[in-house]
């Protein structure tokens, strides 16, 4: 098909192609543990580049890449499109997306994530991508006590049933104080 001389010209170009094709943190992403590790390293070391690339891959056809892009945003998000993208996941049916988005927002002072976490108290739905897979109530319990100045019996709650029992108190607290909550950067939590 190609003459030897033409091949000699094309081969170096083909070899160079991947490096010149705008390859990002998600190029050749297979979802292996090493891929996720490398993605996390890149997210920490070059957050701007990874954030931009993640936004482009949020609707990738490959579900593993889609999740990886979302995961990268939980590390790199900042006010603007990236936090908006996380906020869009607050209504996701996927418990990993819904809870991780809410926690990521809350840890950055985004109080929109709080109602999602409160609603998860008492739920035994499992977040299968976490290591170890964790019930949403257990995850919400950790995040709420980590990033608010409230306890309302939650810290001592053992298991979904006990967490469900304190959920009304948390709902009441947020209904009464949600609009006044302010993020305290020094204390790394919301205070009413």
């Amino acid at each position, binding site marked *: 098909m190609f003459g030897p001389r033409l091949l000699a010209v094309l081969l170096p170009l083909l070899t160079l192609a991947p490096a010149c094709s705008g390859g990002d943190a998600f190029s050749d992403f297979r979802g292996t543990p090493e891929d996720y590790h*490398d993605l*996390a*390293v890149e997210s920490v070391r070059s957050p701007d580049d990874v954030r931009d690339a993640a936004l482009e891959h949020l609707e990738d056809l490959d579900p593993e890449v889609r999740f990886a892009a979302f995961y990268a945003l939980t590390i790199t998000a900042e006010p603007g499109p990236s936090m908006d993208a996380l906020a869009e996941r607050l209504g996701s049916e996927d418990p990993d997306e819904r809870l991780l988005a809410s926690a990521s927002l809350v*840890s950055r002072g985004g109080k929109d994530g709080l109602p999602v976490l409160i609603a998860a108290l008492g739920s035994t739905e499992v977040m*299968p991508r*976490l290591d170890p897979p*964790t019930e949403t109530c257990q995850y919400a319990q950790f995040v709420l006590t980590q990033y608010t100045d409230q306890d309302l019996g939650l810290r001592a709650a053992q298991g979904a049933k006990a967490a469900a029992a304190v959920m009304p108190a948390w709902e009441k607290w947020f209904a009464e104080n949600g609009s006044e909550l302010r993020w305290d950067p020094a204390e790394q939590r919301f205070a009413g």
Partner: protein
Amino acid sequence: MSARLRAVMVSVLLGAQIGLPAGRAEAKTTVSVKGTVVTITVPIDAPNLEGTKFRNADGDLVSGEEYWEQSAESIWNEAFKLHGYRCFELRLNVDVTPRPIDYEAVPGRHQILYANGSAGGIKGSVLKPNGDTTAPFTNATDGMWGNLSPTGVAHEVGHLLGLGDDYREVSQNPRKTEPIDGRQHTLMADGGPVDQVLVDRIGDLITKSGVKLPQCWTGTMKTSSDYTLTDNPAFRCSTDWETALSVVVSGDGTLSGDAVATLVGGRECTHPISVPQTTLVVYSVTGHAFDDRLEFQLDIVDAEPPGSNDAGGFLRTIFSQNDLAPVSLMIPITALGVAEGDVELEEVSGVNVGASVNSIRLTCESCEPEAVG
């Protein structure tokens, strides 16, 4: 693939090729043994953790390194108090040092990047082979952790102790997992508590990694003793005792441990005695293991009730009445991991004669074919 994982794999291949223990020099999770206490130290360099704050179990804001250390140590060490490994008590010491983002991994310390995301641990949280492995004991390991709950930290440190996950993926899209049969509600499956199985697996990994733990010998000594007066043969008291022994034998044959003796039934005497009868004695045990026998002495640490003595003479017989030094008890090793025999003791002091027959049997679960000492 991380540079160090690649380097480890290359070193494994090279090691296999030239017959050297792969990555041995690049330590890792380390183990030290003192008596029956086995201390596991997990050294972690943590790029990007510097300046972070987390709320601990008490709600206090502490540094990231304190949070990781406290979370892992409290969960594991509480469990180690409840669940021993053979005759050993395991203890965990986690040593976390925050490092700059671009810090290069160094030999001898695991490197865990703090990725400040909401997913505490996901795939790649600790890069190691699947399943239980001795790899963290022989090679430093890489990983990345986000905002982990205390249970999450303990789970990830479990990987640095060599434990694999106790759950499996049952579908990829959507991803679903389930605990391995029988492992529900345990730390490496779903964040439940640490159970005896996990502790035993860690102990087994320690020995598989090449750490030579002392031998554990446990067993009982059943004693029948009599106390008589030569100038008054009508005077006679008898007691029976059962003593639980637990000793370790280190590589040089030194034997040490403890024992608890309990009075079986009451004392039988030919006439009334006003001094209270001793019912429980705690001993320290010292001695030496030889190829063909165990030799040890019992030294009293405590006796109950206070101010009591043993009318049956047992306590007299295990001490020389001349110099009050403990008498040496010797039993032959009759088979691999079995030492048993009867030891007859008699101590005469003036007209007082104490005599005991002590049937001792000790077994060693962990003894290997090579000789002791």
